């Protein structure tokens, strides 16, 4: 009955629902497929024909899949679907994309021009790159988990480790930058007390800005990781609970 497995896999892929809801539907279909197969076998059909007939009888049309999704989707998702349904025109989508792009460009310009960041020295750039990478991963994972409802067990935790790695990388980069600046500062120390104080205060300013930025990025990324991780755990627990009931 290998074609049953591939059909169930297809349904699993096409049904845009949270995994526990999807699993319930799949288990129901699987049980009906098996019963129909046994019915056709008892009527004297061969294995292959019984399998094909059962599949033909059970096969969900695109319309039926859409109806099942509408029945089981969350109120929030229904609201989102209604929102996208009312903003379907190309003009509206283009206007939305233009506004989003404008906001991103202006925010980027402000961030780059901020005196705080300029004071942090060159090590701020890799930290900002880690932050941008983490934001991209977090957005992609949030979209997959909350909007697209892609709760496939093989993909559900993807990207979470990368978030932690980026968080650690930003702290390590800040610490490395701080130590390097300290080393340079010592190298520039001179007998003139006034100039030594000047170098020291410059180092303090740079390193405090750098370490603050590094820690801020790390903390924010960790909070996002925690929220996504909790969602993933809730989905997995619901899945395990459901299978346990069976």
């Amino acid at each position, binding site marked *: 009955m290998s074609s049953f497995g591939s059909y169930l896999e297809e349904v699993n892929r096409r049904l845009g629902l949270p995994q526990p809801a999807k699993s319930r*539907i799949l288990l*129901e279909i699987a*049980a*009906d497929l098996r*019963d129909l197969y046994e019915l056709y076998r008892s009527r004297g059909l061969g294995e292959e024909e019984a399998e094909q007939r059962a599949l033909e009888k*059970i096969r969900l*049309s695109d319309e*039926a899949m859409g109806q099942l999704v509408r*029945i089981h989707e969350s109120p929030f998702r229904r609201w989102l679907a209604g929102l996208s349904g009312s903003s379907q025109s190309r003009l509206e989508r283009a206007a939305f994309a233009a506004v989003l792009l404008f906001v991103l460009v202006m925010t980027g310009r402000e961030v780059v021009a901020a005196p705080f960041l300029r004071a942090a020295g060159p090590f701020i750039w890799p930290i900002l790159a880690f932050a941008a990478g983490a934001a991209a991963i977090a957005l992609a994972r949030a979209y997959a988990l909350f909007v697209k409802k892609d709760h496939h067990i093989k993909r559900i935790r993807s990207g979470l480790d990368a978030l932690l790695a980026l968080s650690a990388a930003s702290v390590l980069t800040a610490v490395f930058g701080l130590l390097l600046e300290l080393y340079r500062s010592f190298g520039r120390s001179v007998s003139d007390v006034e100039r030594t104080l000047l170098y020291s205060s410059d180092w303090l300013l740079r390193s405090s800005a750098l370490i603050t930025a590094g820690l801020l990025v790390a903390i924010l990324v960790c909070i996002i990781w925690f929220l996504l991780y909790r969602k993933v755990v809730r989905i997995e627990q619901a899945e395990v609970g459901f299978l346990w009931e069976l």
Partner: protein
Amino acid sequence: MKQREFETQNLARQCNELLILSTLAGGEKHGYQIAVEIEERSGGFFRFNHGTLYPILHKLEQEGLIQGAWKEERSKRKRKRYALTSEGRGYMKRLAREWREFTRRLSAIVGEIEK
């Protein structure tokens, strides 16, 4: 629960609902049994594709007209069995009355044409 009206533009859906609810009036069943019983009792006139059955069953369950529960069968396998609720029984009776009225009025018009 929202009161559902008999709507002539949704004849197919309401016909399917009435068939399913009437089948469940005889006792709880799972999806496959419902489809097979409808087919057998109608002498093959209503051929229910199971693919169209699931959305109707799940919708009726969501509206509280039927109740689905996973139960262990004699074969030790767990199956989802559906049972009619008291709201579902009331809705089924009302729908049956409306369908009888609908077919009576339709026959009156079609009968005149045939004469």
